[in-house]
């Protein structure tokens, strides 16, 4: 039996067009042996939840640099739940002011990453979170 592959959806919600960070993380996860589905730019919360549903992912990684995280992230988490995917672990990266982080964690985000994060840390966190969920 092959080991269970971790499947991650990397998504860019909202209107900012800066996807270098998302692509770097996607590449790092790939190199850690995960299967990464990349959605492309300017996704609505519905589109992200729909992609997560069709791809049956374990993890959704969001990248937001527009400042709209407090509006977008709760909507995405709600859409995931509405689809019956409470099991999905949500990670967030981008430019997120420290004052906002606690609120986002309370909303159900597993962890928030800022600039300069070591991608090995992200990989490790994802593996731990997914095995805890299983």
């Amino acid at each position: 039996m092959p080991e269970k592959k971790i499947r991650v959806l990397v998504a860019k919600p909202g209107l900012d067009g800066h996807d270098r960070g998302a692509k770097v993380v996607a590449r790092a996860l790939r190199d850690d042996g995960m299967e990464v589905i990349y959605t492309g730019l300017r996704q609505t919360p519905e589109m992200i939840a729909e992609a997560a549903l069709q791809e049956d992912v374990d993890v959704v990684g969001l990248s937001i640099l527009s400042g709209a995280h407090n509006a977008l992230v709760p909507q995405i988490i709600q859409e995931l739940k509405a689809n019956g995917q409470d099991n999905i672990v949500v990670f967030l990266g981008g430019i997120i002011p420290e004052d906002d982080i606690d609120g986002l964690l309370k909303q159900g985000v597993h962890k928030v990453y800022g600039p300069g994060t070591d991608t090995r840390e992200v990989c490790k966190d994802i593996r731990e979170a997914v095995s805890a969920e299983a």
Partner: protein
Amino acid sequence: MPAEQISELRKGNRLALSRVLSQIEAGTAKGDQALEALFPYTGQAHKIGITGPPGSGKSTLVNALARQLRALESHPKVAIIAVDPTSPFTGGAILGDRVRMQDLQGDKGIFIRSMASRGALGGLAAQTEMMSQAFDAAGYEYIIIETVGAGQSEVDIVNLAHTTIVVDVPGMGDDIQSIKAGILEIADILVVNKSDQLGADQSVKHLQNMIAMGYRGLRYAGGKHRLSATMPQKQDEPEPSGWIPPVLKTIAFDGTGVDKLAEEIFKHGKHLKETGLWTEKAEAAITETLRKLMISTLYKQWRQAMPEKELENIINQVLERNLHPHQAIQQLLSYNKNTKQ
């Protein structure tokens, strides 16, 4: 796999379908049970394979084609299985086909599933066919399967799809490329995508000439100097299937030519059914599936019965050049026989 999940899937519950797909992809016992329960409901869908070199616009073409199919009067449900390569070094993968399929995402009649090849060669993943069965049983009338960006010999798709579309782009090489064996041979429909680019007409001509060589009676171009006039006689003329692959020009990005492509797909489907080839293809596909399952099952059985130590011992003997791999296989096989007795 609980019966409830199967009936949910049949009723159109997309989360149930998605989870079954994961079980099938992982090759679990649950996945096998689901496939067995679903199998009686399969055999309805028209499976369309799309293959071609990386960057030829396969995903964009799939996007445009799915939209075209959904616009039909009956609004058929369309499934897309998009395969991308797995890294041979880390086992990871980046599945990026959805990026080109964004305008399909609001449509609940379309289900896109990305798949990593997980070490399989030939342009598909080992479980692609099994996953297409789940879509089939869930009532998806068209299943579009996009292969890994293929080179010259990734031709597995032909065993899976009813209609195989090979996508080419202008400037991929001279006419000798087009008469090589391999991927171009498997096409039921040939598409020159990005046909607004320089050299599109020339590519079309190369491909038409390639096809004309195989059909004596066919004249795309060239009058009495046409290539087909001088080719050696083939056994059956025209081809026994009576289907001559059309060469189409598309610009997938803005949808140009995609209506014509859909028409040819319908025509091909009808042709297969009228000539009995539909059943013949199904039979060939089942034979191939059984062959593959037999190989993997026998291998698994052998591997389980083989003690690690004994295997290592024989590998070492090969390493030291005391045994040729041929001889090693004989020993490994006879070892198994001995233990059974």
